[in-house]
């Protein structure tokens, strides 16, 4: 609700009439710095087509900076380009290029500090260290921006959209690639992150810590170095997101560490090394998701408790569920498992034989990963069959008592 209010506020602000200052090569005002110092609160500054190299510019009053035909603000590889602080500022349609790199400071193409009611829309950021860096701000919108990094190593590139200590933010429809983390949130609460595309980032597509009461809707995270990692947060909702092709030795569709009281619904996990990896997480409802062609659909460590996995569909995963102990405090119910071999006598759509999703071989591989080389061999299927007949090693309580015969309709 509060981000919605923020949008309404911004709409009001945008159409308050003020003076308009036009900046262009052959106009009386031909630098942005000059225009900013002339402008008063409520003014609109139109930046016309061209390339402007003016070092670091600070905006600390309520103005609307609008680019006409994608003007370029160039940081010359040494500066932070634009720094915003204050209230009611909007930045639209500008191409930020070549922001500086520093190992001491978090230089960003666009930095926002101590601000409220900021709108960042339709901008392009290329070749920046950090893309958009927001600190200690509230009620702001970052929308429809394209942020393309240089895909260097982890310490040479910053985050695409970086939020620190913010609340009531809306991050929507941005496209981020080639940065360290696509979207990074720390101490960010009551915010909505939706319809973003975060791909080919060096580390995580989405990374958040200590960020409570946030909602993630319809984002897609593809081909990131290590997928998505979320830690130490409560009351998180993740719905309709796509986690695709996050491949690597420690890559996960989502890594959940110390997450509690959250919901993960209607997401699709496709071709990840691990779909969901959970550690120390409690009271999470994971339902109506699709897990397809992952190496491991779920890795639920024994430190997780009171989580519910319901009405998910599992297709063609190399392993459905793996765990590292025999203690199981989580529930599985009404999932569809394509490896299920039971029958349904009373035809209520629910299999009469419980399904144990942890195979013997999954336990073996967990203990000795080198044995992965024996996957799909005759001896492995014999072992699995033997274990099914006389269970001994696999956790007995990790069981779906009501497995579905046909895939759940999602």
């Amino acid at each position, binding site marked *: 609700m509060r981000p919605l209010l923020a949008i309404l506020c911004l709409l009001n602000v945008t159409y308050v009439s003020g003076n308009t200052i036009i900046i262009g090569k052959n106009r009386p005002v031909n630098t942005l710095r000059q225009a900013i110092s002339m402008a008063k609160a409520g003014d609109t500054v139109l930046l016309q087509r061209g390339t402007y190299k003016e070092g670091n510019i600070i905006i600390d009053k309520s103005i609307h900076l609008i680019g006409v035909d994608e003007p370029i603000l160039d940081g010359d590889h040494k500066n932070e380009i634009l720094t915003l602080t204050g209230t009611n500022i909007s930045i639209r349609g500008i191409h930020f290029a070549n922001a500086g790199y520093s190992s001491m400071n978090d230089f960003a193409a666009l930095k926002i500090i101590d601000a409220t009611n900021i709108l960042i829309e339709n901008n392009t950021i290329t070749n920046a260290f950090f893309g958009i860096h927001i600190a200690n701000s509230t009620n702001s919108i970052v929308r429809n921006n394209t942020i393309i990094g240089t895909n260097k190593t982890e310490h040479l590139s910053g985050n695409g959209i970086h939020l620190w200590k913010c609340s009531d933010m809306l991050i929507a429809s941005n496209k981020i690639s080639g940065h360290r983390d696509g979207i990074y949130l720390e101490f960010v609460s009551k915010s909505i992150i939706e319809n973003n595309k975060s791909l080919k980032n060096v580390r995580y597509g989405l990374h958040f810590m200590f960020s409570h009461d946030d909602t993630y809707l319809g984002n897609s995270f593809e081909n990131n170095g290590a997928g998505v990692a979320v830690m130490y947060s409560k009351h998180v909702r993740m719905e309709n997101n796509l986690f695709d092709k996050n491949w690597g030795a420690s890559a996960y569709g989502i890594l959940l560490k110390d997450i509690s009281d959250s919901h993960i619904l209607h997401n699709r996990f496709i071709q*990840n*090394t691990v779909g969901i990896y959970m550690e120390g997480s409690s009271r999470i409802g994971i339902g109506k998701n699709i897990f397809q062609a992952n190496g491991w659909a779920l890795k639920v460590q024994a430190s997780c408790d009171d989580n519910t996995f319901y009405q998910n569909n599992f297709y063609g995963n190399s392993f459905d569920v793996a765990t590292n102990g025999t203690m199981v405090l989580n529930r599985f119910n009404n999932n569809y498992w*394509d490896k299920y071999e039971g029958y349904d006598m009373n035809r209520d759509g629910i299999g009469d034989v419980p399904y144990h999703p942890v195979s013997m071989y999954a336990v073996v591989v967990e203990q000795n990963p080198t044995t992965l080389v024996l996957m*799909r061999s005759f001896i492995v299927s014999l072992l699995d069959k033997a274990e099914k007949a006389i269970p001994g090693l696999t956790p007995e309580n990790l069981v779906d008592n009501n497995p579905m015969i046909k895939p759940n309709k999602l």
Partner: protein
Amino acid sequence: MFKLTRYVLYDILRSKVVIAYTLFLFAVSIGLFQLEENQSKAILSLLNIVLIVVPLISLIFTTIHYYNSYEFIELMLSQPLSRTRILLSEYGGVALSLISSFMIGVGFPVLIYTFDATGLALLFTGIALTLAFTSIAFLASVKSRDKARGIGSALLLWFYFSLIYDGLVLLILFSFSDYPMEKFTLFLSALNPIDLGRIFIMLKMDVGALMGYTGALYKDFFGSGAGIIFTAGIMLLWVVIPLLLAVRVFRKKDL
């Protein structure tokens, strides 16, 4: 030589076993593709056919064929033909008929239903395993004069390659789990054509799991151009070396 191969082929076709084998493979493949709603599961079941049934049939059929055409071979030996040529023609006939059964029985359905990297890897493996196990069977049968012993040793070889070997690998991996075994398992996989074929297909099918932890090593190795050449090369060795040994034994053999 081709003339002799042709006679062998005619002879095999007349026995109808190969036709039954073709029909069996065809029925199973079509059945799997029709029954399973997702293709990957059908391919998975076909993988088991290729890794278990194809070597078994190749071994058994070849040994039985060899002993059944013993008189024919003896007759040919009375002609001015070299022993090498006779054995190679026999091999050509048998291998050709088994490969054509495999291509009709499994190849056609796979090409129709899933013409992709996994399907092609499956076909490559099937053909390579047919060739390799036919030559292993020739070696087993020229070694012993007694039919029962020949078939018995062929069965034992199948049992060894498809089950016991993997059990031994599992044992080794657990006994030496404190040591870095990744590179060594690459070497171990080369010692069994079934394992080699299985890993080759797995790289296409379980790419997600193989990218994790140690799996990345296998993926990097077998997935690279060098790895594919390595796989093909080792497979070729598994075809050529037993066959050459068989020819050597056959040439010196007192029939």
